[in-house]
């Protein structure tokens, strides 16, 4: 298992928002954290990425205890909700950023950048300005940038929330195809069932700071742990979405 989280409890100075959370993810697996606003899923991302220091618990990535490491040493690729692209840099400069701050020479950087842009199906887009890209393209540039530094874990915060409904289906399935090509464990935070069903290998349903069910999407749909989970995963075409993956 690549990532182990045990009894993680965290908050913002007051009562804990995240309560005794435990789970593990193996290499290549995509775990989707789903739940309503305020359920603690973003707090969990903040703990893993280093924005927030947890009150207690263990976060171990490939045997390294994350809470002892500064943010830049955690080897965690982060794709924020708005993709966090740097507007003063071109597409390739964005993708190469992590390599540049690690001191890699320009020739190696551009080689990796070209590989990553090919991986996310944006070959040849390197010289473009960020402002010339569509929402889906921006998302893939953010993903290429996060992957370029060979992270041990990829965190994606609502990766489909800024994509319009017309193209969401295509963008979500493209994202899943990219996920299938990479061996990095991934955590995706979302409040949308569609996103969760397309992307998840396993689905963690969070309510009130706790993971109340953690299983494959098929089993969560078939046997919801309680009435609240049943309401969250109720969708007429859920099976159809799962079959479309």
């Amino acid at each position, binding site marked *: 298992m690549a990532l182990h989280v045990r009894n993680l409890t965290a908050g913002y100075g007051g009562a804990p928002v995240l309560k005794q959370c435990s789970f593990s993810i193996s290499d290549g697996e995509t775990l989707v954290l789903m739940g309503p606003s305020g359920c603690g899923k973003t707090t969990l991302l903040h703990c893993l990425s*280093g924005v927030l220091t947890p009150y207690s618990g263990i976060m171990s990535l490939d045997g390294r205890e994350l809470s002892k490491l500064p*943010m*830049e040493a955690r080897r*965690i690729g982060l794709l924020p909700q*708005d993709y966090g692209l*740097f507007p003063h840099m071109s597409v390739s400069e964005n993708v190469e*950023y992590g390599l540049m*701050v690690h001191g890699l020479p320009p020739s190696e950087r551009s080689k990796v950048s070209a590989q990553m842009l090919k991986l996310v199906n944006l070959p040849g887009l390197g010289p473009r300005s960020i402002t010339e890209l569509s929402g889906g393209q921006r998302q893939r540039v953010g993903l290429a940038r996060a992957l370029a530094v060979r992270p041990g874990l990829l965190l994606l915060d609502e990766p489909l929330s800024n994509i319009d409904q017309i193209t969401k289906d295509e963008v979500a399935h493209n994202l899943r195809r990219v996920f299938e090509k990479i061996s990095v464990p991934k955590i995706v935070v979302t409040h949308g069932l569609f996103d969760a069903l397309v992307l998840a290998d396993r689905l963690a349903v969070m309510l009130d700071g706790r993971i109340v069910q953690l299983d494959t999407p098929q089993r969560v749909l078939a046997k919801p742990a309680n009435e609240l989970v049943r309401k969250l995963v109720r969708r007429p075409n859920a099976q159809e979405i799962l079959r479309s993956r």
Partner: protein
Amino acid sequence: MKLDSRHAIWGLYLLSALLVIFSVSIILYQYVAALGSWSAVLAAMGEFRVLSALELSITSSIAATGLAILLGVPLAYLLATRDFAYKLLLETLVIDVPQTFPPIAEGIILLLMLGPSSPLGINLAYTFAALVLAKLFIAGPFIVSFVARRFRDIRRSGMSLTARSLGADPFQVFTTIYLPLSWHEIAAGSAMCWSRAMGELGGSLLFAGVIAGQTETIPTFVSVSATSFAIPALAATLLGTTASTLALLSFKRLMPKE
């Protein structure tokens, strides 16, 4: 009678026009006043005292602005990105208070602190350095406040966190994200700082003194000669305010449109 809102909006325009007329007429009246005796004003502009006062105003304001950038940008970064005890007090003291300080009081304090009877044993009174320090105190806050506002926006955008997650240390984040995204604000803050420094009076008058060719600037020359040498004072005023206005207009033209 119920006021028609389509007509009421004209009331707002009228009120704003009153302030525009008040401010612009004061600025423009110096040119109107000069028109009556333009040849004498032009001749006064060529006088040694006026020219050296202009040169000292410009050079000391450039030096104060340079110092303000060097010290103010790091302070803006600290204020925008770190939360610490008494931050509000520090911001008030460094940014707000200097801009509302009574001008003469500033001069007296600087003279007591860094003058002939300085408890620190440093005497900078009546020197070029005194001019620069007096201007830095009053004008430096413009750079800090302009740049800190931009740095806060960048922090809120989350770009700095993304950069950290990609392996950048805090100093790399400062040089590769904060600084390149804030050049316009640094330039705009510098223009405001320089223009304010050009008009600084209290500290220059008491701390740097009014020594022609050494520490006399446009504002101090005007303050000591306004009653006895009205034409040279008017000429100096025209030079100082025109330079500041042109500097501000140039930077506003350079700033990107929202």
